[in-house]
């Protein structure tokens, strides 16, 4: 295919005005994150290479999820490519709602995709979505404030150390808060963080019989620890802070530490947006010595819904947007630090990319997350910061609202956990477990 289009391109160069016979217009639904907006801006390159046009439907994350889920569940056929995550891919793939990507051309080099990413986006060896960028979570901290507190961040800290450092760094009079963590309710917001963190505390969502475990002492410890820490060393209004709010706080120099997605590293070290660009250090997400670290694994990936009329063109787009060439294209236009991270082994072997300060820590974090064995105790599900069952998004969003209300001081930890336990049990029963 790639050879074919290249030949066509050659012909076009001669005939200047020609359009490939198979030119199509594909509709792509995507999220309004920086990397995707950059991709949107580079569409011209794709159109020049293949002749296909792209219509973008760029939506905020929550709206996007709602739209694509609705569309695929009802088989609306509105989109030729959907941007989905590591949570949706296995569920939809199992339903045969997505087109298999096992037949990508050799030049695509599917073996180059990081094993963790490829595994998380495959069902029984079939790749259903191609990772556009991948992430884990890690600690981003202010080197200057850490020094001022007289501490030194180890590469693999414990929660105990992090909590202690956070309290020492906090200086509320000057609007410096030791630690910024997600508090905004949502399965992809506070629950992504809390679920991953609970793994480090030895908690789990369900036991082997799918019984919810919010009544366990491990969950109580997780939630109490988190809320105490945030009350003492967190920013005001933490219960409405999500990824974006925390990013903005960190960029303004108001956070000592921030544990969140590894992709944030390129934003906080970008001098154009960040006031603290040259004072940021990185470390692995903390643990409590139980053998699991609280770092998640996520990818935003491009998938083709089954039944689209424009499968071939859609595959050409995926081949373009998730290829090695695309990484080089972005590097040439915007520099290596702005390349979509976390998808390809070759990127991390590239000496140019190794100079990027957060490259190594990102890769280490991704490699240390294991969705197939996320917890200390055994569980019947896969997923680090989520549970890969269709009901999870709905349940976790409601649980997240209870935890968020507890963080805001509107209810106690015990009340929040009791409500979480009840509503999870109700929803699981409604789903027929």
């Amino acid at each position, binding site marked *: 295919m790639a050879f074919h289009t290249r030949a066509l391109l050659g012909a076009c160069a001669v005939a200047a005005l020609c359009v490939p016979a198979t030119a199509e217009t594909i*509709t792509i*639904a995507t999220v*309004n*994150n*920086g990397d995707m*907006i950059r991709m*949107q*801006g580079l569409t011209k390159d794709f159109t020049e290479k293949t002749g296909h046009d792209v*219509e*973008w*439907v*760029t*939506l*905020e*994350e929550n*709206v996007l999820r*709602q*739209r694509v889920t*609705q*569309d695929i569940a*009802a*088989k*609306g*056929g*509105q*989109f030729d490519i959907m941007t989905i995550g590591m949570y949706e891919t296995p569920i939809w793939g199992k339903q045969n709602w997505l087109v298999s990507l096992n037949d990508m051309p050799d030049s695509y080099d599917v073996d180059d995709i990081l094993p963790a990413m490829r595994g998380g986006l495959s069902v029984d060896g079939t790749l259903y979505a191609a990772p556009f960028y991948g992430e884990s979570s890690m600690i981003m901290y202010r080197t200057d404030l850490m020094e001022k507190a007289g501490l030194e961040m180890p590469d693999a800290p414990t929660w105990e150390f992090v909590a202690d450092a956070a309290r020492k760094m906090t200086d509320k009079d000057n609007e410096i808060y030791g630690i910024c963590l997600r508090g905004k309710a949502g399965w992809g917001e506070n629950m992504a963080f809390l679920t991953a963190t609970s793994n480090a505390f030895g908690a789990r969502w369900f036991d082997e019989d799918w019984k919810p475990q919010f009544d366990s002492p491990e969950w109580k410890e997780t939630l109490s620890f988190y809320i105490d820490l945030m009350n003492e060393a967190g920013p005001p209004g933490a219960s409405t802070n*999500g*990824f*974006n709010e925390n*990013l*903005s706080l960190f*960029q*303004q120099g108001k956070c000592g530490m921030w544990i969140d997605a590894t992709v944030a590293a390129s*934003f906080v070290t970008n001098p154009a*947006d960040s006031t603290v660009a040259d004072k940021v250090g990185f470390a692995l997400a903390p643990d409590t010595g139980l053998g699991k670290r609280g770092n998640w694994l996520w990818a935003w990936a491009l998938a083709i819904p089954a039944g689209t009329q424009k499968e071939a063109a859609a595959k050409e787009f995926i081949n373009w947007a998730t290829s090695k060439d695309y990484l080089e294209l972005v590097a040439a236009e915007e520099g290596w630090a702005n390349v979509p991270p976390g998808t390809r082994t070759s990127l991390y072997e590239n000496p140019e990319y190794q100079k990027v300060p957060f490259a190594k820590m990102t890769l280490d974090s991704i490699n240390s997350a294991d969705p197939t064995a996320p917890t200390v105790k055994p569980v019947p599900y896969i997923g680090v910061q989520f549970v890969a069952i269709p009901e999870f998004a709905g349940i976790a969003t409601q649980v997240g609202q209870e935890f968020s209300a507890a963080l805001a001081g509107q209810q106690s930890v015990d009340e929040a956990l009791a409500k979480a336990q009840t509503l999870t049990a109700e929803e699981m029963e409604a789903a027929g477990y």
Partner: protein
Amino acid sequence: MARAVTPRRKTINTLAAWAIGLLIFFPILWTILTSFKTEAQAISDPPVFLFFDWTLENYAVVQERSDYMRFLWNSVIIAGGSTLLGIVIGVPAAWSMAFVPSKRTKDILMWMLSTKMLPAVGVLYPIYLLFIKLGLLDTRVGLTLVLMLINLPIIIWMLYTYFKEIPGEILEAARMDGATLKEEILYILTPMAVPGIASTLLLNIILAWNEAFWTLNLTAAKAAPLTAFIASYSSPEGLFYAKLSAASTMAIAPILILGWFSQKQLVRGLTFGAVK
């Protein structure tokens, strides 16, 4: 008509009314001002009000990312089309209810209003399936129809209350002179009802323009109006107040301008029969 008041009282009235008016308008003003700031100025502490480096950069960025004119055009067609269609269907219905009332007229009117109480979220799935079957997803026709149906009860009700205030004797006189039903509606009723129709038109264009559930859920790329345009600027990564403000200003400006220019017409008929 005009009551005699002391200049002092008039001054106090003026000051109070202006203060409250500006207070109510402030969020919009602030959004417009912020749209001309840089992202850093947009969140500066203390906030800057007027003295900043005015920039059009945000508008350029927004325009570069999304084709504003396409969203705008869709909004115009969907809001305008659904309202016009609603008026065409609503005028005869309102006419017959106002001038040939029966015992059930009031019940029918209330029933029509009650269809507006169908919770949209609850019927999204059925409607979505229906739209797939009919091939109406992501089409302007489909959205125009849905918004027309949503607003039809309000349209009929507004027209009805307005028609009721037209004295029946005039129509009777026309009928004596041998006017047909068609002539009666076209040449006598309609001219008298123009203010009512105009304000019905305006109110429903506003309602349709601002409808954000169906317009977002039933569209993708082709028929997406400004409500979808806004959905790509709420909470992206990084600082976004200034860009959000620019996108917001672009989304509300057309309807705000229309509303201001036509506010006299809008207000004149916006009584719902409340004035006797």
